[in-house]
C-alpha cells in the first residue's frame, strides 16, 4: 500500500487559536480511514485544508504519484485532481432532479463551453444508472432532489462523490440523522467505495466507526493523538482521558 495523500506539519490558526497544530497524516490507496475526535478537535478545518477552502499557515500537502502540492490550488482544481468531499449537512441541488445532480458530478470536462455544448452519452447514462443502483435511488432519478428524505439526500451526495470518480473521498458524518437500516446501507456503500480508492470518514458515532472496521485516527486540539484500530485507540489512556473520558463513547 502506497501513500496517496501526505500531510506534514500542517498548522492553521484563527486569531491565535490553533485549529490545526502541526498535523501530519498519510492515507494510502485504497484505504478506509475513520477520523474521530471531540468537538473542536479540528476535524472540519482538516477537511477544509485538504479541499482548498482554507489555506494553512504552514506545512505541506502532497497528493498522488507525482507528489503534487495542493497548497495554493483552487477548490475546483483540487476536486478535478480527484478529491471529493461530502459535507456534514447534506448539500444536494434541491431544485434539480436526482439524475441532473448525478450528471453534474460525472467526470467530464468542466469548462463552461465544454459544458454548454455537452451532449449526453450512453456511457454517461449507464454510469448514472449504475451509481443510482448503488445508492438505492434508481426509482427516484426523475424526482427533484428536494423531495428526497434526509437519508436519501445523504446517499445522493455520496453518489455524486462516486460519480466524480475521485481517488480520495472525504466524508463528513455520513450517518447523521439516518435510521439504523440506512446506516447499514451507508456502511456498505463506503466500504465498497474504499475497495478501489481512499476514503476518509469523519464521524462522531462510535458504533458506525466500529462497523466500518478500519484504521482510526484520533484528532485532538488540531493534531493526531493516536492512530490504529478502534480497539487499540479506545484502550489508549490519553485518548480515554481527552475524549472518551469526557463524553459518552457510544452516543
Amino acid at each position, binding site marked *: 500500500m502506497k501513500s496517496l495523500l501526505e500531510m506534514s506539519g500542517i498548522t492553521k490558526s484563527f486569531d491565535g487559536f490553533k485549529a490545526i497544530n502541526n498535523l501530519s497524516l498519510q492515507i494510502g490507496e485504497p484505504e478506509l480511514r475513520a477520523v474521530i475526535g471531540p468537538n473542536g478537535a479540528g476535524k472540519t478545518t482538516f477537511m477544509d485544508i485538504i479541499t482548498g477552502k482554507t489555506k494553512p499557515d504552514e506545512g505541506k500537502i502532497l497528493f498522488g504519484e507525482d507528489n503534487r502540492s495542493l497548497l495554493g490550488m*483552487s477548490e*475546483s482544481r483540487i476536486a478535478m485532481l480527484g478529491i471529493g468531499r461530502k459535507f456534514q449537512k447534506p448539500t444536494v441541488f434541491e431544485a434539480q432532479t436526482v439524475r441532473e445532480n448525478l450528471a*453534474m458530478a460525472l467526470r467530464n470536462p468542466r469548462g463552461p463551453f465544454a*459544458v454548454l455544448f*455537452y451532449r449526453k452519452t450512453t456511457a454517461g*447514462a449507464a454510469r448514472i444508472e449504475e451509481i443510482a443502483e448503488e445508492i438505492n435511488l434508481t426509482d427516484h432519478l426523475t424526482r427533484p432532489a428536494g423531495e428526497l428524505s434526509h437519508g436519501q439526500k445523504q446517499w445522493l451526495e455520496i453518489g455524486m462523490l462516486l460519480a466524480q470518480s475521485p481517488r480520495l473521498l472525504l466524508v463528513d458524518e455520513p450517518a447523521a440523522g439516518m435510521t439504523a437500516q440506512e446506516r447499514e446501507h451507508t456502511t456498505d456503500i463506503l466500504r465498497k467505495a474504499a475497495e478501489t480508492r481512499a476514503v476518509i470518514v469523519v464521524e462522531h458515532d462510535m458504533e458506525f466507526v466500529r462497523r466500518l472496521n478500519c484504521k482510526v485516527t484520533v484528532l485532538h486540539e488540531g493534531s493526531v493523538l493516536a492512530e490504529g484500530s478502534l480497539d487499540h485507540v479506545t484502550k489508549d489512556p490519553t485518548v480515554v482521558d481527552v475524549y472518551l473520558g469526557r463524553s459518552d463513547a457510544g452516543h
Partner: protein
Amino acid sequence: MTPTRKSFVARNPSVLYFLAALGLFTAIVAVLSEASGVGLISTSFVKTLGKTLCLCLVAIAMDVVWGYCGILSLGHFAFFGIGGYAIGMWLMYARTEIIVIDSLAGQVIPPTPQEVSDAIGNQIFGVVGSSEFPLLWAFADHLWIQLALVVLVPGLLALVFGWLAFRSRVTGVYLSILTQAMTLALALYLFQNDSGLRGNNGLSGLQNIPGFDDTGQDVVSIAFFLTSAAALALGYLLFAWITDSKLGNIIQAIRDDESRVRFLGYHVESYKLFVFTLTAVIAGIAGALYYPQAGIINPAEIAPIASIYLAVWVAIGGRGRLYGAVIGAAVVSLLSSWFTGGGAPSVDLGFYVINWVDWWLVLLGLTFVAVTLFAPQGIGGLFDKLVRKS
C-alpha cells in the same frame, strides 16, 4: 437510462408556445399598424410596443443572470444604456453629417472635409460648449464599428468588472451593491459635460434613421418593431437553449450552493463570468434596438434606479422562467406608461382623489413588496401552479 434523446423543443414546449404567441402578436400589430394602411394601432403605440419588446429582451437576460445564476446584478440596465449610446453615436453623427453637408452645399465654395467635420462637431457638441470631437467618437462615422461596439463595450465592461468581482468572491448582496456602484459611477461619468457624450443632454434625434429620411416614421417604427420581435425571439431561443443545457444545470446549482459546485470541480468564477458577460451583451443589443425607437438617450436612463426596476420586472414576472421575465417586463412597463401617461382613471375617495400619475409608484412599490412576500415566484409561478393543477 437509455438515452431516448428528445429534441430541444419537445423537452421545452413552452418555447414553442412563446414563439407562437410572439409571432401572432407581431403579425397582428403589423397588420393593424398605420404602415399597413389599417391604422388601428397608432405609430406611437407601435413604438411603445417595440420598446416593450426590447425591455422584454433585457429582462430575460436579467432573468438568466439573476433567476438562473443567482447574481442580482444592479448593472444590467447600464449595459442596456451603453448599447443605446453606441448606436446613438452613429445615428446622431450620420444624421448631423447629412444636415451639415446639406446646409454647406449652399456656399459659394465647396466645403473642405475639415469644415464639414468642424460643423458637425459644432452641431453635436455646441450644447456642452465644445466643438472638438472627443476620442470616443473616433468611429462614430462607421456604422459597422459602432454596431460592433454595441456588443463589445458592454461585453468588455462586464468581463473586466465580473472578473474583478467574482475573483475576489464577492457574492450576494455585496455583489449587488458593487454592481450598483458601478452603475452609479457610469451614470455620474456620463452626467459630466466633458464626458464626450453631451453630458446630461444625452443623444437625441435618434428616431431619424440616416439614409431613410424619406421613409415615414410609420414604416420605420414597424421595421424596428419587427426587428425587436426577431431579436426577442432569437434571444429567447438562445437563453432557452442555454438554460436547458448542462450549463443551465450548473448555473442553477451555483445559484443554490456555490461552494458545493466548487467541490464538484467546477470553476464557478468562469461560469459566472460567462453568464454575466453574455447577458450584458444581450442587454447591450436590446438597448441598441430600444433607443432608436425612444429617440433620445441620456444619463438618467442609466441611473441605478433603472437597473433596480429591471429586477422588479423580473421578480414580478417570476424568476427562473424566461416567459416570466417577459410577462413581468411587458406588464409592468406597459402599466407604468398607462398609469403615468394619465391613461388610468382617477379614483375619487370622497375626501381625496387618487390621481394615478402621482400614486402609481406607490402602488407599484407596495405591489412589489406584496409579490416578494406572498408570491416569490411571481406571476409566472402562479401561472405554473394553474397549469400543474389542470
